[in-house]
């Protein structure tokens, strides 16, 4: 327990029998617990960036990792994990949006949420305020452009990696990124942020 009374991150290892392997050979992928430890922040941030509300993040991230666990045996050896994970979380987020009509209202509410007052240059913003700004502006991007923007600008994937993850021609990925940047900067300017 920390000195604020909050619980420690107490890991009870989810010891799993490996999913049945096609080849019957040794595991060709990292253990599930390691995947969770390594990539949970990535999944969490991407779900937020795709418009999942704070209230639904627990459910959605849990669902993503349950699917990950189920499909781990299908992961091809040597395949990059983050693009593969993104494919799963993307489907989970899409299903979530389709199934919850109110999610559209949430997105709209999020987009209209007043931004914190800009009291100085953007680079002096607190992380929490910066997160609110970016979370509010991302839904204003067209969905296919938002994905590329999220993965490159926020998560640092390379454009070729993103193109591969999304099944896009490389030029299309570059084009969407360029347009997304322009849209984001325009949205930033409209909001009055310096």
């Amino acid at each position: 327990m920390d000195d604020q009374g909050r619980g420690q991150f107490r890991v009870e290892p989810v010891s799993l029998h490996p999913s049945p392997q096609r080849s019957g050979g040794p595991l060709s992928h990292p253990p599930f617990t390691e995947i969770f430890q390594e990539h949970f922040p990535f999944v969490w941030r991407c779900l937020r960036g795709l418009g999942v509300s704070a209230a639904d993040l627990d459910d959605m991230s849990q669902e993503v990792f349950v699917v990950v666990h189920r499909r781990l045996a299908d992961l091809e050896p040597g395949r990059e994990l983050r693009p593969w994970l993104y494919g799963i979380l993307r489907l989970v987020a899409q299903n979530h949006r389709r199934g919850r009509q109110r999610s559209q209202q949430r997105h709209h509410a999020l987009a209209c949420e007043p931004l914190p007052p800009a009291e100085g240059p953007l680079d002096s913003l607190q992380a929490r305020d910066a997160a609110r700004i970016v979370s509010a502006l991302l839904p204003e991007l067209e969905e296919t452009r938002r994905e590329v923007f999220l993965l490159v600008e926020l998560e640092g994937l390379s454009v070729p990696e993103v193109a591969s993850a999304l099944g896009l021609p490389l030029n299309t990925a570059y084009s969407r990124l360029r347009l997304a940047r322009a849209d984001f900067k325009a949205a930033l300017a409209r909001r009055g942020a310096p």
Partner: protein
Amino acid sequence: MTDRDPELLPLLARARVGMSPTADDVERVHARISASLLRPAGMERGAAASGSVAARALRWTRLRWLALGLGAGGLGGYVAGQAHSSAAPAAVPQVAAAASIRMTEPAPAAPAVAAEQPRGEPPQRTTRAARSDAGAAPKASLRPPPQEGARALDEVAMMQRVNRALARGEAAWALSLLRQLDLELPRGRLLEERAAGAAIARCLLDAAVGESELAGYAERFPGSVHLPRVSQICTRVDRQ
């Protein structure tokens, strides 16, 4: 080489910190996932290879460098990337508060490796434990028990994850992993590495603590091989 737009990097770097999960988020979701998945008997890890005391000491020395990876420039990528931004990432209030937690001092480690004697370990304990090891299996007294080798690998693997989290700028996540490591493996060997990782993470989260973090680390581990890197991060953040 990054494809990121340098103009947007300062805002998005901070937003990334703010959009990242806290330690409480991690614990909560992990508990839910654990509850919803099967939990058969734990996966067995293979025991580490045995070896002479000197060989183990040498292996531990290499593992220490490997574990935190600071010398290999694992953190350098993050630092280089952040060189484009004009100011340090801002603090995440919840985690900054939690980051004031003192890392718990692990209990004295298993006494088998004389060359890597943990600081402050009472010599009687070492001698008594060594005698009991010898008494239990005289021919195999220099072989580490399987659990020790497995724990060593766990600790190294976890420290590599900490290093990767720091290289990605996920300082809060790195602190979560270090707290997890403290809970699961209090009798670790990588004390300096854990403390260095924690100091670096706290400096990245809150520029204001740079001076105190550096002073605290230097006091605990004077002459540590990681001191230059801790100093680089904590004073660099401070200066901005």
